[in-house]
């Protein structure tokens, strides 16, 4: 028997929770069909998390790609199918990626497994994104280096702690009609590795904690800068990410296991700082949103 996981029409960080909810009651070895036929929109978080979903399954799942040609074409240009075809059995044809001059994809879906991958990602994002970040988001050239640094730290965390490769993607959006009312860039860095709780199991924070769960592990790692290693220089990467996101009025969310935290919630958005008892999903999923810089009054 095959269980069907139906993707929402708009697949983003929030709506991916409906996917995890559908997965929750199913055994790890259950045969799945992930049905994207009616999906019309997906963010970097949605696409990278879909690859993580397949990585968590003991049996290779099936995948029904979007029926809409434009959506399918975008997913192909984003390199999603390139990796999805390795992790899923495709039910239906997928288009080959064609160059379109689409400058909004700043970094296609890219695997993160080795130190060299991070070098490639940082190099490509500087090559492709600097002009967009300075012209569309009004960031100073210095801020684009901080952007690349944020990306490298987030990807390095996968290599250092996840014990399994992950994925990264970066995309620009015009959110003129949304509450923020301006262009934004979204970074998603997702893995299906061991997650914060297991990674920090041997940490001092764990030894001192009366209670230990995914939310406490997330807060220890992301907010307090706790690392599994005692070295005082550890935990600097996430501190740097938080500093950058805060400085540029951005938003940061991190999900791991059964918890999700939003350590930086800007005024232009609403969210809850911490959610416990969510349906479990392996690894760590991080999203950063950086909006266009507002002109100083």
């Amino acid at each position, binding site marked *: 028997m095959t269980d069907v996981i139906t993707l929402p029409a708009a697949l983003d960080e929030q709506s991916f929770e409906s996917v995890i909810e559908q997965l929750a009651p199913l055994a790890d070895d259950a045969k799945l069909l992930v049905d994207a036929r009616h999906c019309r929109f997906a963010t970097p978080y949605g696409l990278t998390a879909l690859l993580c979903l397949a990585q968590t399954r003991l049996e290779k799942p099936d995948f029904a790609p979007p029926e809409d040609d434009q959506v399918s074409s975008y997913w192909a240009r984003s390199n999603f199918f390139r990796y999805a075809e390795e992790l899923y059995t495709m039910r239906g044809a997928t288009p080959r990626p064609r160059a379109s001059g689409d400058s909004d994809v700043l970094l296609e879906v890219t695997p993160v497994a080795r130190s060299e991958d991070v*070098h490639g990602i940082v190099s490509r994002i500087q090559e492709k994104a600097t002009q967009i970040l300075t012209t569309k988001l009004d960031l100073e050239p210095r801020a684009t280096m901080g952007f690349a*640094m944020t990306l*490298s730290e987030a990807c390095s965390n996968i290599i*250092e702690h996840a014990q399994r490769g992950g994925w990264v993607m970066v995309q620009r959006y015009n959110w003129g009609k949304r509450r923020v009312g301006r262009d934004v860039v979204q970074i998603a860095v997702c893995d299906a590795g061991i997650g914060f709780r297991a990674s920090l199991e041997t940490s001092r924070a764990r030894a001192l904690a009366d209670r230990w769960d995914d939310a406490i592990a997330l807060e220890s790692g992301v907010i307090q800068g706790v690392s599994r290693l005692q070295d005082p*220089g550890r935990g600097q*990467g996430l501190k*740097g990410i938080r500093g950058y996101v805060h400085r540029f009025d951005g938003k940061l969310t991190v999900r791991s296991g059964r918890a999700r935290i939003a350590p930086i919630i800007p005024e232009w958005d609403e969210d809850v700082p911490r959610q416990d008892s969510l349906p479990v999903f392996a690894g760590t999923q991080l999203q950063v949103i950086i909006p266009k810089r507002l002109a100083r009054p």
Partner: protein
Amino acid sequence: MTHISVHSALQASLDAPYSDLVTRRTGAAVRTVIEHQLSGLADGSVAFLDFSRIGVLDRSCADEFVAKLMLPLSNDHPSRDGYVVFHGVNELHLEIIESVLLAHGLALVVQFPDGAARLVGAVTDVERRLWELVMRQGWCPAERLAAEAGITPDEAQGQLEGLARRRLIRRDADAFAPLGAAA
């Protein structure tokens, strides 16, 4: 004085020609290359580490490279008798370098293109004041600096010896001198 290109050390550490100092693994590899170069220098020499062709520097890499390079040089029993000055760092590099130095209680000297030098990292106000006086006056005994710093000669002597032990100035007989200055 010896010039060491961090970019060349990076190239020697990677298979591909990247210019960014990112990831701990890269930081450790670059540190190994530079430690090897430093080990070949004469005792008491000053090595200028040139960051001028480096793009992005992230904290993880800086911790692995900068902090772990400086730790054995600036403890009570240094791994070698030499000095390191950073050169060619941009504003963002400086911010990252300072954050990792602070995390380890370290400090180092950074020289800017105009020749001006700055003490970066974990130093007290008194240490900074004395260091700046040494930079301004060149070779100088502690008692002469004490009055200008507003502290006792004994205190000045102790603070300056601490700075010299941390390889931020040079001890020269009964006086103290900036790094790079003629001994």
